[in-house]
């Protein structure tokens, strides 16, 4: 029983990080139909900027708590600027290009960002400084730390904030309109270019937050960390039904939990034939199975095929 609870907790934490990253994919996809492959790299750069800023500020004698808050803000600002420029420079000129063109551009941008990060931050693993003293608590035979609690709380708060933004503000209404039908939204006076830019900026800010969380959770960062994270998050977005915000959140949590439980139990289930290093398989197996039975994701709308 305690393996179950323990893996559930771990999965919840990992899942809320996936969910935050998945939101970035799903917002952009919902409006433009584009897989922004470079989003994982934006998350990675968020982590890297946070490490640099914390290091610089603590060297200047700023207390580590304040330094962490400022670093998070800095990471968010850098990532928002990055997300905006990605859209402006790389994707906007390709609005009417064939479908695969922006995908290749996104892959190209991902390569560029990864190598830029390697030039700036070296190819070594970087240590993410410890911000708060870690304390461990027990519940029903399973352990969780205050860092894990903070991660989940922050993730839930920011997702609630995003939902408020999408469902209660004019910008949110414009975004929903644009994702339903960009042409008609434009006729109704929605500035679709601005909406798309906003989707990139908000998604990148959430990505930066996720990057900060990943960094403080695992306490290391690497220039290639964004790739797998991005992949899993995109899987989560597809799992939930891409383009659907609540779906991305649920998909992220679900994926994290399935992965953790799978890794915890696979050894027992297969009699020791397959071990926990098969963890990464679960994300993809689950994805394939779900899409076989519900091709539009768990919470995706069942739209008829358009001729």
């Amino acid at each position: 029983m305690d393996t179950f609870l323990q893996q559930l907790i771990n999965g919840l934490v990992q899942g809320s990080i996936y969910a935050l990253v998945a939101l970035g994919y799903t917002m952009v996809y919902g409006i433009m139909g584009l897989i922004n492959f470079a989003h994982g790299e934006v998350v990675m750069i968020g982590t890297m900027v946070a490490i640099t800023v914390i290091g610089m500020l603590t060297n200047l004698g700023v207390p580590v708590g304040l330094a962490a808050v400022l670093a998070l803000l800095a990471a968010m600002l850098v990532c928002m600027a990055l997300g905006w420029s990605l859209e402006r420079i790389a994707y906007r000129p390709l609005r009417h290009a064939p479908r695969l063109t922006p995908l290749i551009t996104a892959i190209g941008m991902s390569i560029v960002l990864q190598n830029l990060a390697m030039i700036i931050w070296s190819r070594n693993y970087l240590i993410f400084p410890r911000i708060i003293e870690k304390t461990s608590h027990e519940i029903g035979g399973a352990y969780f730390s205050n860092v894990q609690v903070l991660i989940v709380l922050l993730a839930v708060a920011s997702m609630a904030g995003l939902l408020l933004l999408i469902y209660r503000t004019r910008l949110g209404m414009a975004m929903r309109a644009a994702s339903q039908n960009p042409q008609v939204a434009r006729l109704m006076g929605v500035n679709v270019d601005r909406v798309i830019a906003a989707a990139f900026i908000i998604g990148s800010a959430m990505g930066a937050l996720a990057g900060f969380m990943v960094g403080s959770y695992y306490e290391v960062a690497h220039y290639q960390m964004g790739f797998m994270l991005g992949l899993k998050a995109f899987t989560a977005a597809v799992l939930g039904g891409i383009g659907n915000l609540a779906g991305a959140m649920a998909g992220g949590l679900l994926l994290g939990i399935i992965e953790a439980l799978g890794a915890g139990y696979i050894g027992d289930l297969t009699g020791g034939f397959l071990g926990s290093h098969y963890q990464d398989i679960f994300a993809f197996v689950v994805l394939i199975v779900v899409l076989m039975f519900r091709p539009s994701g768990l919470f995706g709308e069942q739209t008829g095929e358009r001729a």
Partner: protein
Amino acid sequence: MKHPFLHALLRLPRHSGVLAVSGSLLLLALPIVAMWGGQAWVRILDFAILYVFLALGLNIVVGFAGLLDLGYIAFYAVGAYTYALLASPHLGLHLPFWVILPCGAMLACLFGVLLGAPTLRLRGDYLAIVTLGFGEIIRIFLNNLNAPLNITNGAQGINLIDPIAIGAFKLSGRTDIWVYSLNGPQKYYYLLLLLCTGVVVINFRLQHSRIGRAWQAIREDEIAARAVGINTRNMKLLAFAMGASFGGVAGGVYSAMQGFISPESFALNESIMVLAMVVLGGMGHIPGVILGAVLLAVLPEALRFGVVPVQQVLFGKVLVDPESLRMLIFGLALVLVMRFRPAGLWPSPERQRELAEAKS
């Protein structure tokens, strides 16, 4: 028309005979010329052709049938591991290549159908992510199938793989022909060239066949294709299976040529690279795909030789790590080409026309 057969075979325009003859002479002479620059250049040529082979295989799936496959390298891996397991000391088997290559192709084909069957209902981007996941699953298995039963030897990979050999004639090592001594990479070049010519012919023949037209119909509008009586399920499966078998053959040759393989060679980056070749060159247009593959295979290598001296001239020393700089330039090149030639460098005339119409 001097070669009606050849023209009919490839459906080339007339008077292209001179061009074809001089082109093939050039291709035949290439590895001997490249040897002046060192064996490294011959190997780059080998890889360029191998990538042309792979890109044309993927072109069947992505370019002809319009199925976005991001896990193509998995089939390449299946072919490579089939060859490695059946012709290396690892399992103690040393079967000849004419047994293994068809085995690899068939196994890859089987995997292609296995992947294709459950994903038939999926639309573009969903299909992309599922194929990507499939590629990763294959790689993770290759990485971990060394315990409790050692099948793939895990992350260390398999080495001492037999070269392709016909009797006593091996494709590795040196062979003297008259006055010239051919080395291993040069001999593999000729083998790859032969195989690649075969794939090019098959691609050309497919494109204008009943099957090719069915694929094109599915690519443009699946519902309409079904309405005119095309069996879309079988046609899509056929595309997956054919693309996969080409990947399997390419993997086998790669295995034999390198003598060593490890799961690292079959990461997602490779799938993305092959897809980039297809799209960059001009999806569905065979000459374009060949151009894209050659460019993307040679460009990073050429940059490898270029970035260090250029930095020394500009800054007086090597300022930036050459490996990351060349990948940076490579990424930028992808972005820029897509920005200014959204349909690829050499798109088919029909595609260009469609794009022009869409703009106006």
